[in-house]
């Protein structure tokens, strides 16, 4: 049996598919209940009750919403570019799903334990802009197009500072593997020594997922619903699912890079009894709560303020912090040694620059 699953092509394919399902099904349930949780938290912030009619405590509300969305009519605008109009939501949703392949949920538990896991996540999150840009263009509508352009500029701008923050973390880890990133935080979570970067990363994550206070691509009051304005039914539903799955993904990434991923807060008995995946989920939930809390608290940014924050504040700050981190690690000799470098050819290791 073990031979079949690990040593034959067919068995390994079945195993990988089963692993993918084991990640995606809880993820989609999580997305469904994130919409419910968001409405409940916002309601609590605004001293309302929120959804409380469908099922006990309104717990069946996500299913009611899903059924409503599925049974509606799909409307495609007459002048829209049909193929691209339909590809855009599928792309957004698919990208939000495939990023989960590298997220480790316990020591070494990931569908694909890539050596370049961090780069993979960064690449996938930088592709997210295409779904929105294509949707905005293919809709052939002014509001959708403006929303798409805003979103493209916003996501490209904040990716730069996210990239520099990730470099800071990787300097302290010495590996691009996400599992190594977590293992490097055994003694202290990176949110303590790299606290300013933690804040920059979280705010950039808000901008990257187009969440309040940076939800200008949607901007109900000026762009109706931005790039989604022409979408209906299931195609809208896919955008919606993709957006919330991206929120969970960015929360998971924050938890992995700064809050120790699946590690327990203290490496002593009562904490280590709780298995790793539960710690990861708990951390993701805390960060998601902050996402919603921020939405309930802050007014929307003006677009020029958003750009100024990204390019003139976060970019120089994270660049300076990166240089500082590198200098500090070099000066104190704390620079992590890549385990593979132990058996390096001596000609290269001794700085042969010919």
């Amino acid at each position, binding site marked *: 049996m073990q031979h079949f699953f690990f040593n034959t092509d067919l068995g390994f394919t079945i195993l990988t598919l089963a692993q993918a399902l084991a990640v995606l099904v809880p993820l989609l349930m999580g997305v469904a209940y994130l919409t419910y949780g968001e409405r409940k938290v916002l309601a609590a912030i605004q001293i309302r009750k929120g959804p409380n009619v469908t099922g006990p405590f309104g717990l069946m509300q996500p299913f009611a919403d899903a059924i409503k969305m599925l049974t509606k009519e799909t409307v495609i605008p007459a002048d829209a570019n049909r193929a*691209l109009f339909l590809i855009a939501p599928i792309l957004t949703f698919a990208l939000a799903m495939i990023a989960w392949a590298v997220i480790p949920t316990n020591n070494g538990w990931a569908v694909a334990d890539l050596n370049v896991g961090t780069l993979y996540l960064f690449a996938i999150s930088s592709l997210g802009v295409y779904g929105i840009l294509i949707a905005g263009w293919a809709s052939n509508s002014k509001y959708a197009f403006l929303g798409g352009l805003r979103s493209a500029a916003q996501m490209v701008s904040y990716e730069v500072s996210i990239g520099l923050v990730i470099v800071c973390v990787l300097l302290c880890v010495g590996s691009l593997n996400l599992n190594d990133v977590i293992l490097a935080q055994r003694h202290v979570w990176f949110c303590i020594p790299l606290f300013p970067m933690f804040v920059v990363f979280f705010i950039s994550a808000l901008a990257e997922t187009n969440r309040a206070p940076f939800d200008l691509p949607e901007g109900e009051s000026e762009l109706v619903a931005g790039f989604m304005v022409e979408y209906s039914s299931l195609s809208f539903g896919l955008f919606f699912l993709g957006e919330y799955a991206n929120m969970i993904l960015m929360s998971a990434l924050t938890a992995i890079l700064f809050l120790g991923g699946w590690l327990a807060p203290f490496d002593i008995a009562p904490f280590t009894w709780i298995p790793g995946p539960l710690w990861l989920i708990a951390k993701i939930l805390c960060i998601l709560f902050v996402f919603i809390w921020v939405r309930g608290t802050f007014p929307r940014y003006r677009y020029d303020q958003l750009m100024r924050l990204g390019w003139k504040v976060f970019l120089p700050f994270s660049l300076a912090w990166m240089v500082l981190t590198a200098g500090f690690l070099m000066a104190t000799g704390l620079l992590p040694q890549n385990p593979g470098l132990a*058996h390096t*050819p001596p000609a290269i290791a001794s700085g042969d620059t010919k």
Partner: protein
Amino acid sequence: MIVTAFFYIFAAILVASAGMVVAARNPVHAVLFLILAFFNAAGLFLIAGAEFLAMILVIVYVGAVAVLFLFVVMMLDIRFDQMREGLQRYAPIGAAVGLVLFAELVATLAGLKIAPVEAAAPAASGLTNSAELGLVIYTRYIFLFQACGIVLLVAMIGAIVLTLRERVSSRKQDIAVQHARHPADTLVMADPVAGSGMDGQILRAPGWTPALDKPAPARLETTS
């Protein structure tokens, strides 16, 4: 077996989409096919075991460069009939450039050595892709690497110099100036006598200057 199948899938889509970049009538479609081509090239890199290069290709070209391409192409109002007009006239120049590039490609491929003599020794096994690259780039090829960086820096500064110009007619908000304002600079407490009003006089704070030093944006002439 699966790897071979994927190699042919990636390669076929890569060649087909590269052809469509040239053949597509709509420029937005052409850019999207270009992105698809980049993506499949990244897939081929992965199959060749160059995972770091694959990810960098996706991050840099697909995630940043092509987004800006798409951004610009979407905003341009391209008329296809106008583009067709110049085709006859420019075709010989285009063909000549293509021929030169093709000849260079042939010359390069003809002189290609699979394993150049000067190449760095293959790193010991157990090193990850990115570690191997780092070891070579930051030691043996450090000067070439730095030279690339300088070329990119010059290109970046050049682009900024070419596009940056102070627009005199736009009113910009300077957040630092706004924050530096103090009520004492702008507010004067008046105590007018009841029934007489301010007598039409306007009070100014001691160091008051007009808020807008720049001329107002040119207004459209309203026809009366």
